[in-house]
Structures are given as C-alpha cells and as structure tokens.
C-alpha cells in the first residue's frame, strides 16, 4: 500500500489517518447536523472533484487547509476530526470555492457552520475573535475607539461618531445565547503553519 500523504486539514490526526476509522468515532448523523445550518444544506452533494481546494488561495500556501477534505470528513461522519480543528480558522472567506463548485456546495458557508459548532460545543474561540466580540458588547464596534481618535475627528472636520445603542446590542447577544458562550469561552492562540509552502 502506498504511503499516505499528509491529510491536509486533519494533519494533527495524521497517525490515526493511516488506520481505519473506528466505528465509535463515526457519527452518521453529523452530516445532517451540518445540513441544518444556513448555507451548508448541500454538503451531501460534494463529489470530491477538488475544485475548491485547487482554487483556494489559502490551500496554495499551506497544506494544513484542504476544503475538499473537510467536505468528505463531514460526509463520513468523522465529527471529532473537525470540531475544534484549528485549520477551520484559516479560511479567509473569499468565497471563491462557493462560486466555482460544480455541485453548488457553499464550502465557505460550511466552514462557517463548523466554526459555529466548534465555538458552541467546546466553548473555545481564537483570542482575536473573543476580543472583537467583547468589544462589540462594550462599544458597538469591534474596536474600542481611543479618546485621541475621537478628538482627531474634530480636527479633521469629521462629524462625531454616532453613539451606539449598547442596550440593543447586549439584548441581541443574550437572546441568541451567545452572551453566555462568550463569557465562559476559553481562547486559542494563533495557528502555526511554519514551513508551509
């Protein structure tokens, strides 16, 4: 049997990849869980042509990220290889994969769905996203605008920044249940891809 190549996005499971998947690790309903998420409805239609990976700008520069394989792993129900996999956070959302898929599979929307499920089930998110989300709660913006910047607007002849409605924003965070997730969420640091080509 030829040696298996590095499995792209699931590289941290490289050793396991060379063995047959154990039945207990297969979740046959995982596919349907994904298909219920907005934009991910057509994941079952992927026939593995690989156009998404071929046209993916990120995949050109690192072998950690392979959208074709992500679709296949979903179909196979190997949930724990994807949920919490840091490679999911490398998608730039350029959406080229959506437009080029001959089967109409919205690959980058599927990545979004997998990110959402990872955050919700593991209470973990990259620190930069936690900072952005926390800032929205505090200021309405993803940044905390420094006082000096607000003063400078005056000098530049710009109107003052509109005051946010923080009550509305907080309400939306609560009604979706995300406020709780954000509060208890741990953070992950940067994804390392050194030596990637």
């Amino acid at each position, binding site marked *: 049997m030829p040696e298996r190549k590095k499995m792209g996005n699931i590289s941290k499971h490289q050793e396991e990849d060379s063995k047959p998947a154990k039945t207990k690790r297969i979740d046959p309903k995982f596919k349907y869980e994904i298909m219920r998420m907005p934009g991910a409805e057509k994941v079952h239609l992927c026939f593995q042509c690989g156009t998404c990976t071929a046209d993916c700008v*990120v995949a050109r520069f690192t072998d950690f990220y392979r959208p074709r394989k992500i679709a296949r792993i979903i179909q196979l129900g190997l949930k724990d290889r994807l949920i919490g996999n840091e490679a999911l956070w*490398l998608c*730039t959302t350029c*959406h080229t994969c959506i437009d080029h898929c001959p089967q109409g599979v919205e690959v980058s929307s599927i990545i979004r769905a997998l*990110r959402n499920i990872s955050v919700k089930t593991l209470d973990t998110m990259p620190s930069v*996203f936690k900072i952005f989300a926390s800032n929205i709660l505090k200021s309405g913006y993803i940044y905390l605008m420094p006082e000096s910047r607000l003063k*400078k607007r005056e000098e530049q002849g*710009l109107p003052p920044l509109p005051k946010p409605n923080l009550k509305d924003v907080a309400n939306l965070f609560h009604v979706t249940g995300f406020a709780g*997730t954000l509060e208890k969420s741990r953070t992950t640091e940067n994804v390392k891809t050194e030596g990637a080509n």
Partner: protein
Amino acid sequence: MAETRFLFFLGCLIPYRLASYEVSARKVLGKLGVELVEMPEFNCCGFPVASLDYELALSLAARNLCLAEQQNMTILTLCNGCFGTLNEANMVLKEDRALRDKINHNLQQIGMEFKGTIRVKHLVHVLTEDIGIEKLKEFVTNPLKGLRVGQHTGCHLLRPVKHVGHLDNSEDPVVLKKLINITGAECLDYQDETECCGNTVIGINEEIPFKISKEKLEHVKASGAQALVTVCPSCHMMYDFNQPRIEKAFNVVFNLPVLHYTQLLGLAMGFKPEDLMLGENRVKPTFFLS
C-alpha cells in the same frame, strides 16, 4: 432609480484606522452632490461574529438594516466587509422565511422587525449606478495623464455570485476599472486580479496572508503599475499598512503606493493631496506629494 441621499454606514475599521478613506470619500461625494446622512446608533455590521454565531451576526446586521428601514433610505458603505455582510443579510432574510422569522423573533426583544424594504450599496455602486460614469467625467478637471495603476476590487464586492453577481463580473471585474479610467489614469491588467488579500485571517496566522499579499504586490509591480487602487479598508490595511512588514519578512522592496479610490478620484477632481490625506498613507505616493 438614481438617488443622491444615503444613510452612511461607517463600520469599525475606517473610524479606527483609516481617516484618509473617510475624509477623501466625504469630500469627493460632497462635490458630486451626494448627501450623506449620519446613521444613528449603528453597530458592527456583524462580519466577525458570523464565524462565532451566525444567528447573532444576522441579528446584528438586521438591526442595522432596520435602522435604515425606519428612515426608508438606502445604506451606503465604504467597506467591502460591511457591504458583503449587510447585503447578504438583506438578501438571505428576504428569501428564507424560516430564518427571517427566527431573526425577527430576536429583533422583537429590541422592538424592531426586518421587513426587507431597503437596499445596501457600496461606494462603487453609488458612483456607477446613481451618479453614472458620464456624469462623473464632467467632474474630472485634472486628468491624471500618464499615471498607471492596478485595481484590487476585493472579494466581498465580487463573491459569492449568488449575492453580488449582478453587480460586477466576478472572474474579470470591470466596475472599478471603468471608475479608474475616467480619472485619466490608465488601469493595467495583472495576474490574479481577483485574488483575496488575506487580511481576514491575519489575527489567526500572519504567515499565510503575508505570502498571499506578497504575491499580489509582485504581480501588480510586474504589470508596470505605479500604484494600487483599493475600495476596501481591510484590503488597504493589508497592502499599505502591512507592506513594510511584508517587505521585511521576505527581504524584498515594493515601495508601491496604495490609494483609496476616493483619493485617486479626488485628485482628478482637483482636490489637493492634503485635502485627501495622501500624506497619511503608509507607503508615500511621492509622485503626488512632491
């Protein structure tokens, strides 16, 4: 129907880092007779939140859309990310009844309801559709003859086709090229024009976006362009603000000025470089500043 009055959605990155884009856009649009109405109480478009909780992202976007619906005005944004997110939310919530009900249930908590009665436009759509190329030409008093530039339209104005395909050609973008050509500057073709800048993952991993952008800058340089023109604050940050860091990381020199389109158009309309804050660009466009 052509409009001249818009609800101005500023977003986060422009007020935080890129006053040059806001100042030049306000000056240019003002001279073109476009009235910008400040959008009260807006919040982040929702873009970064989509990766964490799509339902919350849609709710945040829909809240902004509702603010515009209350005033029955079209939203104008300068940012591709804000445009992409708000436009997508607007379309998805119009089409998907179940999702709309879910989001409207959330919006009920803040006394709002998404109705789907307004439109979302990016700067380039207002310039081409509402003002029009022919009218714009009349404002060009100082044609930038002899200047050669490349354009970077940016992903969220081009893709996915199902949400923005009616606005430009996603494989061979033409809208920004037309807008550049009326300034008298020549817009050159280069390799992989539709490629992403990579900036959205810079907080996760620097290596990949740096490699992506290095390649882009190489392609633009190879075409003979003297500058790159952007219409998105995020792409601009990547190519301008991060350019010295990319040069350092790969031990290369680009020295390629990156201009907001509103700066380029402003120059062609007779504004002085300092009016358009050209001196604030990280890579100095020396051919205009001397």
